[in-house]
């Protein structure tokens, strides 16, 4: 389904409730009333093309934004991505950590094994944090600078070098290792842990891991589908100007 501006946001959420954390990042919270998307965007001072692009990219894996890409600034996208990062690091990871702490009581595990599984998740969380830091400290500032130069047109030596040595394709492939760790953790829970005393906790953790995996994939898709093409397009135009 292609989400468009005349749809009521409530209908969209009825259809796909996994979009709730996404609209939250735009400052829209449950209890938002009966307005359609255009009206809601106006109320919240949101760029409607941007809002629709993000919603559609999350909702439909086949969605590909074309001309809409040019209708909002990269700075807006980066602001959004950083909010998503906070959601992963400040909400999701602590939530799952807390559930995993409970495993000590609910699973017949000796201290060592419990520590090991716990550390496995901690390692995952640390890697995620490092990855996010690298994006926020290295890549986003570059993109913001690129966009600034793109708009006011004063390309300098620094940017010239950056464009030449730009690691954006590197950045594209970096998400894979993170996926593998999650995959392993799920399989350890499914196949190799001893039976829990109560079933609920195992299922709860597993559900959270599947959700996290889905959300991380979608997040990576937004970066690969929207951020990278935008950056590449700006780089190309700037390079052509040079010649």
């Amino acid at each position, binding site marked *: 389904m292609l989400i468009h501006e005349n749809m009521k946001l409530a209908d969209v959420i009825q259809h796909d409730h996994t979009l709730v954390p996404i609209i939250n990042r735009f400052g829209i919270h449950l209890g938002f009333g009966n307005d359609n998307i255009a009206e809601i965007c106006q109320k919240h001072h949101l760029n409607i093309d941007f809002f629709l692009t993000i919603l559609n990219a999350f909702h439909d894996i086949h969605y590909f934004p074309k001309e809409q890409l040019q209708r909002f600034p990269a700075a807006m996208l980066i602001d959004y991505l950083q909010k998503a990062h906070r959601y992963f690091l400040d909400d999701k990871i602590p939530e799952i950590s807390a559930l995993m702490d409970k495993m000590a009581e609910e699973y017949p595990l000796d201290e060592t094994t419990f520590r090991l*599984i716990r*550390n496995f998740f901690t390692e995952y969380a640390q890697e995620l944090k490092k990855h996010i830091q690298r994006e926020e400290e290295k890549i986003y500032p570059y993109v913001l600078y690129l966009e600034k130069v793109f708009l006011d047109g004063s390309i300098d030596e620094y940017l010239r070098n950056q464009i030449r040595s730009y690691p954006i394709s590197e950045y594209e492939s970096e998400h894979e*290792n993170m996926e593998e760790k999650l995959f*392993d953790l799920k*399989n*350890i829970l499914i196949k*190799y842990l001893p039976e829990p005393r109560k079933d609920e906790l195992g299922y709860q953790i597993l559900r959270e891991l599947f959700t996290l995996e889905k959300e991380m994939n979608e997040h990576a898709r937004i970066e690969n589908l929207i951020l990278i093409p935008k950056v590449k397009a700006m780089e190309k135009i700037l390079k052509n100007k040079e010649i």
Partner: protein
Amino acid sequence: MADIKSMIIIEKHYLLQAGTEALIQEIPGIMHVKSYSGDEPHLTAIILKHKPDLLIINPFSLSPENAALPRKIHSKQNTNLIALIRKEERNQLSFDYSEIFYYEDSKYVLEKKLRNKIGSQKNEETNHKELSQRELTILKQIVLGLTHQEIADKLFLSVHTVNTHRKHINKKLGIKTVSGLSVYAIMNHIVKLEELANNAR
């Protein structure tokens, strides 16, 4: 787990493309499906680069530029080729496909055909669930932090052999990362925690 990891569908009609994708999503173990409509420029090069394990293709969807694609893929790489056609078109196939999906087939017939393809690619060795003695030895070395080269030197094997063992271990256990393998190895008493601690990098 099936050996087939990536699959590509070439079919110009959206409904058929989406239907084929939906069918594939029901089979566990397939990691990646991508669809094309058949008229994309340089499609042969794209597919050759992708190296899918399985290619489901409607040869009549191909634009003239891409018409030679099935033959080229067949001669160049180890891809399983399945044709997707109407029954009445079967005599027009210019090529020996390893399987044919007919528009008229029922869901379960298609599923069975698909499973057969996936099954036939399965390596005999990875059908066993338990690790072999050799694999246990290698798993232990991996968990202790040795590189594949070091393991090869230590056990008088080629690096290639160690890589193959590693792949089998990953597949049998469904665990890919070294830290995941460590959890498994400790839980199953393949290594002791003290050994791990001594070798901590």
